[in-house]
């Protein structure tokens, strides 16, 4: 039997609010909920927090693109998403961690209800959401490799994305004057 879901109360609260935000197309709230989960993900590094952060953020990005709702498979896709969220809430309330994890996984698999371009777009959104959340965890202070390992991506992907986020500009990150470090390198090659 796998371990329990950490911070169960918090996770339930996030899922309930996410469901409400999806129904009202409240993208801002969805993104905030995802950010909230990232704090837990950085500390506990459990797959549940990570999955929820990624899925909620991906749904925010999918809903944000209003043109997707014109695709014929859109209602089928959203129905599958809503069903999985309802089931995830219900299973977590019953402390059925294994079923809960399958339900969260099913949200991602709901993309299979779509076809053609919509399916490709949504898959792309989910992939980018993974890298976006990885970048957020890296910003929180976890190392590049550890973060890549947690999210199941390569350090190459994360490095490429993180380079554009200004992570090095955080004042706490500046630990030595450039001249001193350059001098160290220069002296080493004399």
């Amino acid at each position, binding site marked *: 039997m796998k371990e329990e879901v950490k911070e169960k109360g918090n996770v339930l609260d996030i899922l309930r609010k996410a469901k409400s935000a999806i129904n009202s197309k409240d993208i801002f709230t969805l993104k905030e909920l995802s950010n909230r989960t990232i704090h837990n993900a950085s500390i506990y590094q459990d797959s549940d927090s990570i999955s929820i952060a990624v899925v909620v953020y991906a749904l925010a990005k999918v809903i944000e693109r209003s043109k997707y709702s014109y695709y014929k498979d859109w209602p089928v896709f959203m129905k599958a998403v809503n069903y999985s969220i309802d089931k995830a809430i219900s299973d977590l309330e019953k402390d059925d961690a294994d079923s809960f994890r399958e339900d969260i996984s099913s949200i991602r698999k709901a993309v299979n209800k779509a076809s053609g371009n919509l399916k490709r777009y949504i898959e792309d959104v989910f992939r980018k959401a993974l890298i976006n959340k990885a970048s957020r965890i890296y910003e929180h202070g976890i*190392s590049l490799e550890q973060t890549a390992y947690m999210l199941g991506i390569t350090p190459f*992907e994360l490095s490429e994305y993180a380079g554009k986020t200004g992570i090095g500009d955080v004042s706490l990150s500046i630990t030595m004057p450039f001249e001193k470090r350059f001098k160290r*390198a220069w002296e*080493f090659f004399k």
Partner: protein
Amino acid sequence: MKKALIFDSSSIITLAMNNLLSVLPKLKEGFDGSFFITPQVKEEVIDRPLTIRRFELEALMVLDMIKKGVLEVMNPPSLAKETERVRILANSMFAANREKIKILHSGESSCFALASLLKDHDSLLVVDERTSRMLVENPENLRKLFESKLHTSVIMNKVNMGYFKNANVIRSSELCLVSYKKGLIELPAPSKQAVEALLYASKFKGCSISNEEISEAMKLF
């Protein structure tokens, strides 16, 4: 004392993605020492990306450096054991909500481990990612960073700090500037522009260097 430059994954990745690995063989000429990577780093910069089309070329370019003897995969007998020791030390340095925060993975840990095992070498770590560098140079800043991002109190185990504080770190950005200053990188631009281009290229491919540091660097050239 022989010299050793130990590269972690992040620095190799920055160089590879900027097509600047070619600088390494030139730097190595006349250098009394070795350029090392660990097997754990090799896994991240060659073995895994070789299976991913998007990064296959970069992986092959790094592999080429090994085949040419520019980069050596160094795997002393006790590296695995020492890597695990480092990983445990690093990953018990900070705690929040009574939970130890895992901050380093095996690749990063292996670089510290190798530096520690090469007692007869004068070693320099080449690390572009931020966490390892902060762990060495200002762990208190890393604790503050965690606190500000996690919005909760973070405790630091100062006992473990000792292992890391003697490491010396540079980045691929400094390596590129050394190469430039030695005439090993030629660019059709005045020095200031060339320096700016090299440093922003490293920054945008993941090297943790700030705009402020880049401005500082440009004043040196």
